């Protein structure tokens, strides 16, 4: 019950923040290398393929391919 309450609190906080505007000149920190993750897409693509063939909970939108015959 406490967990559900905490989840609702986080959701409420997120909702209240929704549509708050961060101006383009205020996005400096959100463009830092440790925040902007576009550089990691290649790395994540291979990692997702590994998880596809090793864990039962692969993200549904991940591209397919049997890989090592172990669908």
């Amino acid at each position, binding site marked *: 019950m406490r967990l559900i309450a905490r989840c609702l609190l986080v959701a409420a906080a997120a909702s209240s923040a929704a549509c708050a505007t961060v101006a383009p000149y205020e996005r400096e920190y959100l463009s830092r290398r440790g925040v902007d993750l576009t550089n990691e897409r290649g790395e994540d693509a291979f990692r997702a393929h590994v998880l596809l063939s090793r864990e039962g909970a692969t993200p*549904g*939108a991940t591209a397919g391919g049997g*890989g090592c015959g172990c669908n």
Partner: protein
Amino acid sequence: MCLSALVAAGTAGASSARADEATGRWTGHVGARGNYYYERSTRVMAPRADVQLESPTGTRIDADYLVDTITSASVATGVTDDVSFTEVRHEVGMGLSQPFDLAGDELRIGATGRLSLEPDYDSFDAGVLVRLDLANRATVLEMGLGYRHDAVRRSVRMLALSGRLQEVERACSDDPAIDCGLDVLSASATWTQSLNRTMELRLGYDLSFLRGFQWNPYRMVPVNGVPTPEHHPDTRFRNGFTARLIWHVPSSRTSLQIMPRVYVDSWELAAFSGELRIYQEVEPVLFRLRYRYYAQTDAYFYRPAAAIPMGTRYVTADPKMEAFSGHTIGGSIELAMPFLEGTFLDFARRATIDVVFDYTFQDSSFGNAAHAQIGGRIPF
């Protein structure tokens, strides 16, 4: 603010408006990456190359190519434990998208396609992506729809008349009633919100419906001592809920990421994963540490081989269907190269090179695993 932007989006004419229109310059990047995966019975080497081009009007073209070279001694790949073999997989991906200006906000519509070919498994998928940037990108909404078709075969080594081993293709099953195709419909939605100047939250949901061949055509399950082909249910409905919270600490140039994910499906397999990443900028180097925890329950039809009664409809020896948990720890180092500016390598002054290493401790039948990558990227 969001409501007015959405109303404007619905009424504005769709016309392109890009900063690079004035210069007429194409931008993009080229990248290359080597991947290596190691576990007790499997090694994978997978070089990958990708390129992205963006026209002055914002049309974006993506392409990537990957080759998997898999060496395995696992029964899961169709051979006995004391024999290893190498299999090669080729994967090509393409993407095309176009932005539309909506009264100051941006709507991007795109399509993707991917083809994966290997001796015993072909896969093709196509998708549509829609992305809406609102309030100066403070709010980003994305939706995706996809369709995938896989074709499964068995590649069997047989002794030819010449006395040499020869690869022979066979249907996925000796049972002619079994369809060797798999169709997948998927949909995803994400909402990314800048909470303030240093925090960003992303929430996502993905679902997929699978119908067709979903087990390994080589894997046998000993049922009362009799090797029996594996057989999973034909349909599966999968749901994943994800979140990602990013927080940048300007004073120390440290970034933190927390990424939980909850998953449930119609095979009664439920999973939780949680990942923590810490990034530290020490220009021109970016260090990263990551820890990931993963745990899943077993599928409703999973039973230890000794507990499977004769005549059971669904049997599996797939380690992905059993309950297990794992811990992954890893690190990476990324080097930017602004020091090349003004030298004969000036074209690479915005390039980055990175090295990644992860190690997974897990109690699944696959055992522990190591994963390494080295990659580079040159924007232009």
